[in-house]
């Protein structure tokens, strides 16, 4: 019987809830492993889990410089979707969506995945055409999509301003009904627990300070808890990618680190039961199960490793919230925070073997890494275990930039602060 079940909840409640076990062990690092994953975020933990469950490689260490969930896995706005235009991205994110649909059962841990739908609003006839194009591309790629007209929007979101008084009135929306949200911390904890049960060592407060080399090959890492050797080393450190790879002598990558802010209001009664995005600027907003409205907008737009942002974006995002939902102006903001994004030069990720022998790289998630967590771990584990990319991540190579195969959803070019 699964360890977590309704019966266990009752049994532990009767025992005063004093007999729950910790979700993962706190092992000391061993001198050597088959695989080391640098970075104990969502992607690193998922990779370790799929190495153990899909490939039978359980002699794995996940090294985390802080505590689990301290990075972007605990800082995002929890949105899961697969409404992409390009076939490579659509296939990858749709695979991720299918993994989300069974993830709680797979991990025996409730990640609170809620398929409440995402609606991308449009405000001009040109945007409506673009939404139709994207919707048709999604349908052709086997992803669900439908148009939503203002009458339905008004019924589903009574707080939405449809009066036409705003500068960019809402003309309709493109919905992906299967999209939604998940509890971000639970994803980290669920993967950590499931990986730990399969023998993976999760080592917190263990910062990598250098790479051990044998010629060009990477054979281990220096850490704040001693040297650790491994046959293969995967790096999944999001906004810290350039810093970590610089320790291995890689001084330039198609990545810039930028700060993205997110916000949550005080809790209120249910008033918004889907994820909505604003087409007149950049805003995505949903209501958490706790009742707070969770939202974010653009990155701040300059290189940053500070996990905090500046006021112009705060003002910009708030003005967009009030434009769509005038009543939300009365809410008080509870918290705001920032995370460091690994913005790639085409807005699409990198999952590849290399750039050095013995090293594997998972990076460039821009600000869409959370929804990718299951498929990213699945594909990265495959790449590490077999030294070949899975068909789903074959296009996410590092050399695509130099071969003319960029995956630029917006056609924006190599200006990462605009992706």
């Amino acid at each position, binding site marked *: 019987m699964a360890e977590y079940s309704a019966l266990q909840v009752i049994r532990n409640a009767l025992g005063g809830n004093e007999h729950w076990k910790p979700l993962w062990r706190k092992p000391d690092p061993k001198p050597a492993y088959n695989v080391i994953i640098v970075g104990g975020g969502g992607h690193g933990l998922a990779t370790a889990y799929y190495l153990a469950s899909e490939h039978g490689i359980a002699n794995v260490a996940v090294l985390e410089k802080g505590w689990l969930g301290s990075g972007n896995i605990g800082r995002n706005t929890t949105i899961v979707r697969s409404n992409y235009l390009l076939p490579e991205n659509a296939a990858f994110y749709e695979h991720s969506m299918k993994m989300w649909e069974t993830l709680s059962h797979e991990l025996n841990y409730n990640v609170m995945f809620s398929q409440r739908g995402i609606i991308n609003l449009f405000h001009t006839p040109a945007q409506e055409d673009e939404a139709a194009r994207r919707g048709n591309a999604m349908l052709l790629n086997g992803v669900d999509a439908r148009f939503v007209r203002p009458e339905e929007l008004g019924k589903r979101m009574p707080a939405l301003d449809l009066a036409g008084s705003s500068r960019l009135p809402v003309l309709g929306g493109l919905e992906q009904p299967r999209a939604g949200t998940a509890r971000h911390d639970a994803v980290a904890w669920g993967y950590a627990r499931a990986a730990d049960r399969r023998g993976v060592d999760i080592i917190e407060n263990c910062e990598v300070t250098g790479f051990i080399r044998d010629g060009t090959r990477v054979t281990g890492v220096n850490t704040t808890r001693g040297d650790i050797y491994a046959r293969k080393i995967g790096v999944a450190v999001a906004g810290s990618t*350039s810093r970590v790879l610089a320790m291995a002598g890689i*001084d*330039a990558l198609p990545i*810039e*680190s930028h700060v993205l802010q997110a916000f949550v209001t005080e809790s209120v009664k249910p008033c918004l039961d889907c994820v909505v995005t604003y087409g007149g600027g950049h805003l995505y907003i949903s209501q958490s199960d706790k009742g707070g409205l969770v939202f974010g907008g653009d990155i701040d737009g*300059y*290189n*940053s490793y500070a996990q905090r942002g500046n006021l112009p974006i705060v003002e910009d995002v708030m003005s967009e919230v009030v434009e769509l939902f005038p009543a939300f102006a009365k809410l008080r903001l509870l918290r705001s925070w920032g995370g460091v994004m690994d913005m790639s030069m085409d807005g699409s990720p990198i999952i590849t073997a290399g750039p050095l022998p013995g090293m594997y790289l998972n990076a460039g998630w821009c600000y869409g890494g959370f929804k990718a967590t299951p498929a990213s771990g699945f594909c990265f584990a495959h790449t590490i275990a077999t030294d070949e990319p899975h068909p789903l991540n074959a296009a996410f190579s590092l050399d695509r*930039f130099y071969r003319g195969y960029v995956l630029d959803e917006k056609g924006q070019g*190599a200006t990462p602060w605009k992706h």
Partner: protein
Amino acid sequence: MIIPCPFCGPRDLAEFTYHGDAARAAARPAHGSTDQEAWDRHVYDRRNPAGSHAEIWQHAGGCRSHLRVVRDTRTHEITETTLYAPEVSQ
């Protein structure tokens, strides 16, 4: 973030537009260059340092000058702001 414009004094971030790494702009291949690798590196590769970063900002909402700003990417602290005029300094 307040950026001290050498012409207008300390002004709010909202008045400025970001144009990225100043070292990258200085290392641009010559206009007539057909060196594919040099262009690949220039267009796609970034140093992305955590720490002191020389970068170009335009005071678009003020005097419209292009500025060279030295800023710490870990703290957002600005230590130097001068006119960005590479052709003048050369």
